[in-house]
């Protein structure tokens, strides 16, 4: 177990390094360079003085040299400054990460529960009208553009009915009610988009399990339906579902990026778009790295969840 965690973490760190280089190189291809704002802001700057500044800040160095310099600073905890907000990047990213985790975490839990619930109902009543209705709902969830769904929710609940705020963050010191009212619409939009694919996977995983011999045996022994579903079927059906959930973390994050931008939720998605649009190199770089790291952590957690659900899967390479 510990050995598994160690090798997986090591692998994730190596992957993260490789990805950091690719992201660094891509950011370098974005329009302009970190000094052109300075040059634009100062009409007296001569080309020579700009060139001097470029060499002072090493912007004129080749890509690998710049990457190594950045990496050395980053490993010492120095991720640089945001050139638009004029604050250390970490001071900006950490609260945004918190806000995103609140939003995606709640949406993740709710959508998993709803999807497994709907998938189980659809599988046990295969072919009925309720199965068809759930299937149609799942199709709609897969096919709807999340940003447009958010706009529709804003139109109905904020513009027409006026029940909920159209976006923004709760103020500092606000109570739970303010948090709930600000979170309700973005979470609803994310959940609707997420449950589409998840419900279909949960349904087919459940169908697969329900056709197994041990379920027939359990039924023959006269076990109550609910207990059979919970103890025998659900646990096994969850194993493939967990894979999809883990692989779908990137999908959830992409959805959050759009939803955060529409609801003005101060999370990573909004920050990333602002940083890319404003050519805020350091900020964009660190945001992307944190996001990649989050996805890697999610995949390791998914592997741990496998062993918990299915003791036959041995992570240490040795059969227990």
């Amino acid at each position: 177990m510990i050995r598994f965690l160690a090798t997986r973490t090591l692998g994730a760190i190596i992957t993260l390094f490789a990805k950091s280089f690719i992201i660094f190189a891509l950011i370098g291809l974005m329009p302009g360079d970190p000094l052109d704002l300075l040059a634009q802001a100062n009409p007296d700057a001569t080309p020579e003085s700009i060139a001097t500044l470029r060499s002072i800040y090493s912007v004129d160095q080749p890509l690998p040299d710049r990457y190594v310099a950045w990496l050395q600073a980053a490993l010492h905890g120095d991720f640089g400054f945001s050139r638009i907000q004029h604050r250390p990047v970490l001071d900006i990213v950490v609260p945004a990460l918190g806000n995103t985790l609140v939003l995606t975490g709640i949406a993740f839990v709710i959508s998993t529960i709803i999807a497994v619930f709907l998938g189980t109902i659809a599988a046990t009543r295969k072919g009925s009208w309720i199965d068809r209705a759930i299937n149609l709902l799942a199709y709609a969830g897969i096919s709807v553009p999340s940003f447009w769904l958010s706009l529709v929710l804003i139109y109905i609940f904020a513009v027409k009915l006026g029940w909920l705020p159209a976006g923004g963050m709760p103020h500092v010191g606000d109570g739970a009610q303010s948090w709930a009212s600000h979170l309700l619409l973005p979470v609803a939009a994310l959940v609707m988009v997420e449950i589409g694919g998840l419900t279909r996977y949960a349904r087919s995983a459940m169908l697969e399990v329900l056709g197994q011999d041990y379920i027939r045996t359990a039924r023959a022994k006269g076990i109550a339906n609910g207990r059979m579903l919970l103890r025998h079927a659900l646990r096994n059906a969850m194993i493939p579902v967990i894979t999809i959930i883990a692989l779908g973390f990137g999908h959830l994050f992409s959805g959050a990026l759009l939803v955060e931008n529409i609801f003005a939720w101060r999370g990573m998605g909004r920050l990333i778009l602002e940083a890319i649009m404003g050519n805020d190199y350091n900020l964009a770089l660190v945001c992307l790295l944190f996001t990649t790291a989050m996805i890697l952590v999610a995949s390791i957690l998914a592997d741990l969840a496998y062993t918990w659900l299915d003791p036959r899967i041995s992570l240490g390479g040795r059969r227990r």
Partner: protein
Amino acid sequence: MSEIALEPAISVWTLRWRRLARDRAALLGLAVLILLIALCVAAPLFERTLGVSATDTDLFTRFSPPGDGHWLGADDAGRDEFTRLLQGGQISLSIGLLGALGSSLLGTLIGAVAGYARGKTDMVLMRITDGIISLPVLPLLIILAALDLSKLGFSQDFIRSGAAGYWRIVLIVTLLGWTGVARLVRASTLALAEREFVLAARAQGASAWWILSVHILPNAISPVIVATTLAMGRVILTESALSFLGVGIQPPQTSWGSMLTNAQELIGNAPELALYPGLLILVTVIAINFVGDGLQAAFDPRTDSR
């Protein structure tokens, strides 16, 4: 001697088509798609017969209600909404098709090479595949869409042209979208390479490319067709998101996503303008998914999950 009634031989594709033709959802999806494509292609025809323009702005017809040639009214710049939707559909649908075909071709190539070469090549290619799968896709797409092409050596004339914005989207969707098909094709290739007819071809001295293109890929094609169909829906969604954020299709070109760019301001006074493009995306992608799942069931009757 009695005559034996001989039925004409039925090819596997006829069988598949018959199975698909029994699937009402798939047929409905197919009909909706064909209707949408026909309408979008006919956009110039509608413009001429209705006497409206999808591109010319007109301050006097801003937000005008339906009527007077404007079937769905006019948008915030006085352009005819109905024909503009059709024009946007040309871009959205063709990007969906090209992006899906591009990523399938690239994925088939990579998957076939990995599955046939095995060993180190396979390992490296699959590591890259896994790496791309675990990337935060949308932020990367935004960066790729915002890259300064002049730093990659393209001329300013090309960068400013509408074609650059269009092909850029097709290219980046292809570059990040091939992983699913690559895995499918690799798995099929690994299995097929063990079969007797492949061994026989190899024993006769057939080259690797010959074996792949004549013996293996034709046998691995049906899951790829399904994946390509489903990918078309995903590409349309991705393009709409990028264009909505302002990094996709650039004016004067328009797509369903770019028509929603200022939708957030529109929902206050003209909500229907924010409604139509999204509704079209939803209907199109649902139709594509119906067709894709219908094809899946028709190609592989064992996995009929419906």
